[in-house]
């Protein structure tokens, strides 16, 4: 990456009357591997590299990017961004919350360097999963699998004196299977993600996970009973806990959403100024504490400094069941009279940094998973989920079980097919009376922004026990 051009871009911007300027360069080596039914369909490799300028002038913001690395191009995008900032003609002038300048370099270590892994080995790692599926005594109608590898180098400078260089190797994998038994199909997908080297593959244990998925789907077709709809207890596995934490805590706590900046796309929040919910309002039971933490090393959403150069930290979003803290970038923090908590992320040089989650999860309690289940007379254990969604104020959500079992008198009975919980955020989190003592994480790609910026995140938590919720 040509850091001289990036420094030049900032200096050129500073010649004009601006309130703030920042330049972000990003170069990434990209690999995409796509298999269908265990056979390689296509292998893609590319170098993607470019830079952007964000300028605040006259209380407006302009942003421009290019992938041509030249001083002439740098001037062009600065002039354009400046013109755009001034054209905003805002009545309420934008400002950023104050942050101290940071000069640092950081990088994520790799035990097994991805650059040293031959392409054949990468393909084989995916193909092996299909071989395992072929011998697991389940009729597999189709599989799709993919692997994404990004080696991301960034350089950030701003007009306040920050200068940050970083390197993150990031690996993701995705599997989708269709099982066909007795003429019926069921489908499941799994996503894996890691910041680090090829050692990720050993940790993921993909073969075992996908074989387990296949067997679960076979059981759903051949053995599962349907749920008799009604009020009952529900034990959520960590995967369900994680998606609920992400959708009905992480997203509504995004301050840009609360302030309306995403209103026409990802929507707003049930939390808003002078509304029924704000910081200090109870939203869940006292057993519920949900955090978002970018500082978990090697997590899919890992970063120690965000894309505005602000140091990252753990954020307590719901604390003891009470709304505690929003996710902020510098713009939203200034609007709400606080400081950024390092939640500003951008997925490439041609995208503005916006408020994002990193790794959102419920903190553990003291009981074991077995103890949670032992105390349920009549209920469902929803270990994992398939279809899900939530409304754009993040209040009405639905999770459909993938692997799920009936609980009778504290014991797991047979599988149940596609149990559904459709409820409000408040009802979900206030119904939690206990959480288990072991946190597990799942990788996910969080969608937000226009144009869309899929952000790598972890979702997770322990098992939750919800009392008296409606399951159908």
């Amino acid at each position, binding site marked *: 990456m040509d850091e001289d051009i990036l420094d030049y871009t900032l200096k050129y911007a500073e010649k004009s009357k601006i309130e703030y300027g920042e330049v972000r360069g990003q170069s990434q080596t990209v690999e995409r591997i796509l298999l269908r039914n265990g056979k390689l369909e296509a292998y893609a490799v590319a170098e993607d590299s470019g830079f952007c300028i964000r300028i605040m002038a006259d209380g407006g913001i302009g942003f421009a*990017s290019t*992938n041509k690395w030249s001083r002439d191009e740098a001037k062009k995008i600065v002039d354009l961004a400046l013109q*755009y900032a001034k054209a*905003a003609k805002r009545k309420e002038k934008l400002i950023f919350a104050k942050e101290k300048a940071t000069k640092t370099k950081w990088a994520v270590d790799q035990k097994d360097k991805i650059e040293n892994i031959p392409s054949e080995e990468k393909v084989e790692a995916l193909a092996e999963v299909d071989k395992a599926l072929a011998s697991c005594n389940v009729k597999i109608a189709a599989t799709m699998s993919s692997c994404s590898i990004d080696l991301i180098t960034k350089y950030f400078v701003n007009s306040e004196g920050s200068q940050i260089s970083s390197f993150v190797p990031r690996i993701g994998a995705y599997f989708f299977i269709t099982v066909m038994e007795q003429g019926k*199909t069921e489908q499941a997908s799994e996503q894996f993600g890691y910041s680090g080297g090829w050692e990720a593959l050993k940790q993921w244990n993909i073969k075992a996970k996908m074989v387990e998925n296949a067997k679960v789907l076979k059981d759903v077709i051949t053995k599962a009973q349907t749920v008799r709809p009604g009020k009952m207890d529900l034990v959520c596995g960590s995967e369900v806990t994680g998606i609920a934490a992400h959708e009905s805590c992480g997203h509504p706590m995004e301050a840009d959403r609360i302030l309306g900046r995403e209103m026409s796309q990802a929507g707003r929040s049930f939390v808003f100024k002078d509304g029924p919910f704000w910081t200090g309002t109870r939203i869940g039971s006292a057993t519920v504490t949900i955090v978002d933490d970018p500082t978990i090393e090697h997590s899919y959403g890992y970063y120690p400094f965000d894309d505005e150069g602000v140091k990252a930290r753990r954020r307590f979003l719901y604390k003891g069941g009470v709304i505690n803290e929003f996710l902020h970038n510098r713009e939203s923090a200034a609007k709400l009279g606080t400081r950024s908590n390092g939640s500003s992320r951008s997925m490439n040089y041609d995208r*503005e940094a916006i408020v994002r989650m990193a790794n959102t999860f419920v903190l553990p309690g003291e009981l074991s998973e077995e103890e949670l289940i032992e105390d349920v007379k009549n209920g469902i254990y929803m270990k994992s989920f398939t279809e899900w969604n939530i409304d754009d104020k993040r209040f009405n959500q639905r999770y459909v079980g993938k692997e799920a079992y009936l609980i009778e008198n504290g014991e797991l009975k047979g599988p149940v097919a596609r149990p559904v919980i459709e409820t409000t955020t408040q009802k979900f989190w206030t119904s939690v009376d206990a959480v288990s003592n072991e946190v597990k994480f799942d990788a996910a790609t969080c969608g937000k922004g226009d144009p*869309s910026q899929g952000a790598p995140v972890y979702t997770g938590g322990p098992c939750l026990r919800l009392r008296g919720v409606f399951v159908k």
Partner: protein
Amino acid sequence: MSEMLDKTEGIVKKAKSLGADEIIAKTTIAKYRQVRFSNNQIDITVAWNDYVTDIALAWKKRLVVTQIHEFTEADETLKQLLKLAKASEESPTFNGFAKGNFRYAKSKADREIENLENPTEYVFEAIEAAKKEIGPKIDSGGILFTKFEDVYLASSEGPTGTDGRSAIEFSIRAFSEREASGHGVECSSRLKDFKPSRAGTKAGEIAKLARNPTIGEEGAYDVIFDPLIFGSIISIWASMVSAYSIMTQMSVFIDKIGKKVAPEIVTLKDNPAPYSMSNRIFDDEGVPTRKNIFIDHGTLKTYLHNTSTAKIFKTETTGNAGLIAPGSWNVEMEPGDFHKEELFKEMKKGLYLTNTWYTRYQNYAKGDFSTIPRDGIFLVEKGEIKKSLKDLRISDNARTMLENITGISKERQHVHWWGEADPPSLSPYVLMKDVHLTKSK
């Protein structure tokens, strides 16, 4: 401009000289502009200048793909790519790129869009239009997006061509109250046809009607879908007629060619026509694009193909090639017999839905899914809006919903919105019976 085509052809010649069997190179010089606004004010204006050559190279049925951003990098990249191909495996799907020398229609891309450097006035115009409906307490947000692409394509198998692709899109969501909103879009490929105030007015009208919503009741309803939400529903079926979706079990149309999948009144086609935001004169293999009727009076006629999938299905490409898998460009539903007002009168009692988001599946092959209507949701009786509702979810089946269409309007709108109504479509008002809606408990 032909210099860019020469350079693109140069990549193809070089790859052949290095030993590639087949190669396609597509260079895109793109200018994208976007104005984002919320709370009736502009938050940020964004410009992307993008220079990219997409390359797909085949060697002994191994398919490898890359992008370059500098022509000076091409030789080294091609050598690496070929090395990767040789270390790779045969693709079971790849059956060659399109062969032939084609004649293309003349691109009708609008250079005025390319030269539109500061479109913020359009945003203020549309906010004003919404304000006329709602009044001074309006809260609105959205985007204005422009695209201009110069595309240069060269293939070792014959096709060579240049294309210009232009689009302008405006999307506004206007709130009259905290929980009363309307969404309007205005999409075009030409500046002279672009009237963002129409989107503002529509968003404002819906937001005004949506005031004081109450939580709706679960049940099976007759439903009229606005063109915007129907654009989202259409995109479900369009993704499922890609031959690749059939091959990966991600479709309700598996083994349905020649079979009735919808009522007689339903005709759906893919057509990246000049008016469309997805206008293009050739696909990613250089095959001329065309109209493809995939559901003709209720009967499934074809899947959408590139050359490789067409060979697998023993047919011909439909001009829908992406570099790896075929996809739909722009979906059109043929107009029906009803005027919009007649359609509303036709529905004795039911719902009028205007927009949706967050569509997710349990099973693509079965078609079970749910999606969450947003913005105006209305109870309608005898053609009259009786009540504004909220907090309902469509929990239904993609195949059943297609079968349950009972009325289609003559009026159609070209719609596209974010990732929810994508690809773009020419979408009517549609009446559907027995749509299942659920709510939180």
